[in-house]
């Protein structure tokens, strides 16, 4: 049974989920996320599908189990989102129609999970690549329906609230205005903008924002959802073109909590953290980051943004992918 403990010194929650220690780890002869047909033994006993969502067999948060079976109705929970039945695809390789569907699915899950009385925050994310701890390669993401607002989102909300009090404006909207035509922009579209943040922690960190002040993914209109899907493809495929291989990353979606407050200062955005600082080197979270909480970045955001802007060319003009050194 998952367990939450509160660290009084750091003032943050720590989750304990001991069953996860024995979860499926990089299987070579079987994929739990591939469709296995009626009566099949994968997590998806269907002949085919477009996007499926299911409760994680090894949840990091609960308490949603009683004798191994889920408690109904659920309170909080963890879900797996499988992007496609095709095992070898990546988000960057999906057709935009499928990513558009994924946006609709994320919006639906945000609303449904957020309506549970115990869920304070719906955290949507993807870990891609063994470098960031992936245990299954099939393209998928995860959703944690948390009973608290996690620390990074909480800090952003506090900062944005203070900015509203000081200026009457949204901090995120002001940032978008500054970054959408500056030296750190990756691309600037009609309704979406992507940039390497001024104080990026990761060398190729990119944030995607809707220009309009929307608090959650559920508030995006149809056109913005198409543009959001397009933006996700632009960023992830730019990584692949730049590095010349399918680039690992963590993708994190930040949006309004679902605890009943209005959170007017919230502004939907997605943050990407690729672990590579160059093709053959990783950025590690080590002593100064883990022990002091201060990131040391070996690159300048303006430099990496310029490199990613170059990869906004059509695929035919980009350098072909080659084996990684």
């Amino acid at each position, binding site marked *: 049974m998952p367990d939450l403990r509160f660290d009084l010194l750091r003032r943050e929650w720590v989750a304990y989920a001991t069953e996860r220690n024995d979860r499926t780890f990089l299987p070579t002869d079987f994929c739990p996320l591939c469709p296995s047909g009626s009566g099949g033994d994968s997590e998806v006993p269907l002949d085919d599908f477009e996007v499926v969502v299911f409760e994680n067999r090894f949840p990091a948060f609960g308490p949603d189990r009683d004798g191994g079976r889920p408690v109904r109705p659920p309170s909080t929970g963890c879900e797996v989102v499988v992007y496609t039945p095709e095992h070898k695809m*990546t988000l960057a390789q999906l057709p935009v129609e499928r990513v558009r*569907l994924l946006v609709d699915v994320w919006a639906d899950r945000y609303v449904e999970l957020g309506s549970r009385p115990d869920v304070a925050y719906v955290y949507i994310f993807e870990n891609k690549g063994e470098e960031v701890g992936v245990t299954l390669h099939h393209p998928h993401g995860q959703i944690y329906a948390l009973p608290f607002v996690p620390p990074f989102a909480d800090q952003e909300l506090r900062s944005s609230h203070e900015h509203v009090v000081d200026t009457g404006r949204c901090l995120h909207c002001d940032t978008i205005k500054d970054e959408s035509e500056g030296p750190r922009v990756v691309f600037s579209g009609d309704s979406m903008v992507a940039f390497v943040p001024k104080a990026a922690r990761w060398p190729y960190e990119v944030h995607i924002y809707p220009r309009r002040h929307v608090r959650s993914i559920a508030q995006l209109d149809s056109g913005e959802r198409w543009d959001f899907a397009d933006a996700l493809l632009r960023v992830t495929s730019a990584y692949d073109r730049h590095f010349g291989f399918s*680039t690992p990353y963590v993708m994190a979606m930040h949006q309004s909590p679902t605890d009943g407050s209005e959170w007017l200062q919230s502004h939907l955005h997605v943050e990407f953290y690729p672990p590579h600082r160059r093709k053959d080197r990783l950025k590690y979270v080590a002593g100064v980051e883990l022990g002091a909480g201060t990131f040391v970045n070996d690159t300048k955001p303006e430099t990496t943004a310029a490199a990613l802007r170059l990869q906004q060319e059509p695929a035919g003009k980009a350098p072909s992918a080659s084996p990684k050194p």
Partner: protein
Amino acid sequence: MSRSSARLADGKRPPSPERTAAARHKRPRQLTKVELELGDGRYLLAYGYRATVTADA
């Protein structure tokens, strides 16, 4: 680095801006959602813009 990332060795390329721009003009379809129960009581939701569920879970 001890492990290699998956390479783009399957011949699939990221979608081009032209391809995504063309798709953007398509009208969104109605989202469908079918809920199934897995053997251990967990739920599975099959999403699509068309009915794709063809097997009993």
